């Protein structure tokens, strides 16, 4: 094979090798999008879509740079290996024109990235649409509290760890922290934003049509021992389902006269659960029931716990077995948990679970 055709084969083979590796990488990135609960590549809101469009542009530009540099490295390494009789080009010290060219090209690439970035950020970070639903998300170590407001800003109700929103409706979330820095993130619906103590951050999003369903979120700013366990869910639903959920949350806790539920309530008070967790029965059902006077919650509001699908900041599905494990030893499941091990007997736990199950 002549030197010239050897060169050509080398260049082509190197590009093929790099292209093959790049294709594998592309498949893997794609795989990271499909069916992954926390995928960042599956935008289901207008705002996530705007940011995703910037990502796609940047990804392809990066891919092009990757292929060029990897191929160049491979080709130069192989082609210029020392060979007998071939002298190095010691006369080459630089090439001003080339150097100017490869200063300008990256500047152009940067400009191509910067303009859509500016557009997307200004749009997404701007004010929410008129008539947006107002929710305040408060980060605690290690759970999320959600306070829903009416259009005048008054508090409607509080819940924890699971947030419901109507589909195709703008939602404005005010982000607050009760203690350290947390962050609020549901990759399918919006990029992360910190819950900064002492500051009033906010984000807004509007889900796309047909995105009804459950979407996964997690705290994504290191916040201490159980940062890994601080998760939540957002349920996007039809306006009818959403209204039904809101009405249920606004209503007082359901009263059940069942003997086991009654026994559970006694344990709830005897073990001082109500010093951290609110369960708001109506005065007519429970005239003597004490609701702690503190407005700021220490633990999640349990008035409608049985309407939630998870417990322990969306760490565990809400079922008998998990409730039992949790009540048995909260710090064992969530290191550092503020809820201590109350040394409950199995019998006490059975009663408590009956009570908690009644709180739909």
């Amino acid at each position: 094979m002549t030197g010239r055709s050897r060169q050509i084969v080398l260049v082509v083979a190197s590009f093929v090798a790099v292209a093959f590796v790049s294709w594998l990488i592309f498949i893997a990135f794609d795989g990271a999008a499909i069916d992954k609960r926390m995928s960042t590549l599956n935008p289901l809101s207008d705002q996530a879509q705007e940011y995703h469009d910037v990502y796609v542009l940047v990804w392809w530009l990066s891919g092009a740079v990757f292929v060029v540099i990897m191929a160049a490295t491979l080709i130069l390494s192989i082609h210029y290996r020392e060979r007998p009789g071939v002298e190095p080009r010691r006369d080459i010290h630089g090439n001003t024109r080339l150097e100017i060219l490869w200063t300008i090209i990256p500047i152009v690439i940067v400009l191509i990235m910067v303009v859509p970035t500016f557009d997307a950020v200004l749009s997404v970070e701007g004010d929410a649409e008129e008539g947006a639903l107002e929710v305040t998300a408060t980060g605690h170590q290690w759970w999320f509290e959600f306070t829903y407001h009416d259009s005048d800003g008054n508090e409607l109700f509080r819940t924890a760890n699971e947030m419901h929103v109507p589909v195709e409706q703008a939602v404005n979330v005010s982000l607050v922290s009760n203690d350290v820095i947390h962050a609020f993130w549901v990759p399918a619906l919006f990029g992360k934003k910190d819950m900064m103590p002492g500051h009033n951050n906010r984000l807004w999003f509007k889900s796309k049509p047909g995105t009804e369903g459950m979407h996964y979120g997690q705290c994504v700013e290191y916040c201490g021992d159980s940062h890994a366990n601080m998760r939540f869910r957002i349920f996007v639903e039809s306006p009818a389902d959403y209204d039904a959920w809101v009405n249920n949350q606004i209503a007082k806790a359901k009263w059940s006269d069942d003997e086991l539920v009654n026994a559970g309530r006694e344990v709830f008070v005897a073990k001082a659960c109500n010093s951290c967790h609110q369960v708001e029965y109506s005065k007519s059902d429970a005239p003597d029931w004490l609701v702690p006077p503190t407005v700021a919650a220490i633990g999640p509001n349990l008035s409608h716990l049985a309407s939630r699908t998870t417990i322990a900041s969306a760490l565990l599905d809400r079922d008998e077995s998990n409730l039992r494990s949790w009540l048995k030893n909260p710090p064992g499941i969530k290191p550092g948990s503020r809820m201590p091990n109350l040394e409950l007997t199995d019998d006490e736990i059975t009663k408590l679970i009956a009570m908690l199950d009644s709180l739909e």
Partner: protein
Amino acid sequence: MATATDGVGAVQAEQSKVWEWLTTVDHKKIGTMYGITGFTYFLISGLTALAIRTQLAVPNGNVLSAELYNQFFTMHALMMIFLAIMPMGASFFNYFIPLQIGARDVAFPRLNALSYWVFLSGSLILFSSFFLGGAPDAGWFAYAPLTDAKYSVGSGLDFYCVGLIILGLSSLMASLNFAVTILNMRAPGMTMMRLPVYMWMTLVVSFLLILSLPIVTVALVMLYFDRNFTTNFFTPEAGGDPILWQHLFWLFGHPEVYVLILPSMGIVSEVIPVFSRKPLFGYSAIVFAGASIGVLGFGVWAHHMFTTGLGTVPALVFSATTMGIGVPTGVKIFNWLSTMYGGSIRFTTSMYFAVAFIAMFTIGGISGVMHASPAVDSQHQDTYFVVAHIHYVLFGGAIMGIFSGIFYWWPKMTGRFLSETSGKWSFWVMFAGMNLTFFPMHFLGVSGMPRRIYTYDEGFGWDDWNMVATIGSYLIGVSILIFLINVFRTMRQPATAPDNPWDAPTLEWATSSPPPEHDFDVVPEVHSSIPLWTNREMGIVTPEAPEGLHIHLPPSSYMPLILAIGVGLIGVGLLSHLALVGIGVAIATYGVWGWSIEPTD
């Protein structure tokens, strides 16, 4: 070899070897101590990495408790940055600055020794936290208010403050020393634009540290005060602001990452021309690119804060500057590749590491530019995508550059060659391991895996790539073992390396391997940035040393050691009993006083 009849004399001979090292002001010995200490911490921190990866290999792992995991990921970063990469960088700076500029030592030899001993005491204070109540566990970036005494009960964060303040002092002293040395002590004929690129990178790094270390020192003092003396710099309830900590920290933290990468970029700029057997392509451009990265590096810090609610305008400004800094970086990549063009490349182990640096650093640079856009960053920040980015630039970049330097300069420092066969094995295993560990983290990041989590659940689709990453990390461990075996076997060989085995052009190769204590008999003439090649082409021969040549060297001193012990005791006192601070001050004062009056002839 001591015998029964040698008695006191033999004991004295041994003692003086230890004493020789404790009191040395010779830059080569100090560089060696930095190197051994730094590499030891690199190994220890590598073990924390293996523990972390073992914990994350499967969902809901129980190898490490949450508490221990959080200490491990915090200390992994702290140790790698402050106790491994920076000291190994300092090791080469120390050894080679005087040699590359044709001087015989640094400007302030005792200050040089002091830097090492203060580094050692700071490192011991920080490391000892593991055994004295728990290491810091709030991340290496230690965001307030998590670091407040209210949320970080226990002394870990106090060790963090005191340890880093002392380590910062060490780096500051060393940077001042190096900057003065490079600016003032160059050989005749070595103008600034004839400095080896490695020297330019060292100069830029020195200025980055001189300007950024005071900022983080202030922040650490403020944090220590918030934790121990009821101030409220970062406490929102009392009018303080956690964002203040972030600004102060990242104003240091971002230049710090350039401190970590520029030395390796300098090494690669030395190695590639030597093994391509042609001069560096675009010397001026690489120098200006390095300097501008240093300057621009002070204008990008808030890209670490895109998701904190900075405000749209600041976010966009910092996004533009961050993307901008990719331009000089790209220029360097192209210039290194162009150096290989037209070369006659000899693929020694050192060259493998240098070429891998180009490719791996490019990948890290690409992912970095991706999240220079706040739009992209909002979905990448605090996910494994960033972990992938930092490890491509720090492992694929900084560490591989260091290994390139180790294989390149080993014959010069020790007179022996590390085995090329073993070296190539360690390279390929490390290269495979590194990519297996960190490339999947891009996929984990875009499938939403947060970072700094001690465990994750099944059902999120993160299981497989985590397992792959863990396997890769063990491969890295194997490659390090291969390297260590290489070192131990090599050091058993006799020291027979010639002055310039690689036919390199810079001045350190114009003396014996290892160099004599006075570095050069006669410093060669300097007419270019590649003096040995130019002199050969122009027929210039360096004369032999004249008869009866006496070279005055600075005498050894134990005052730096005394002063460092004093500083260390001050630190220990701040962590235990304030009375010890008084003793530390007294010892330090004695050290300073002794230093100032001792003869230097």
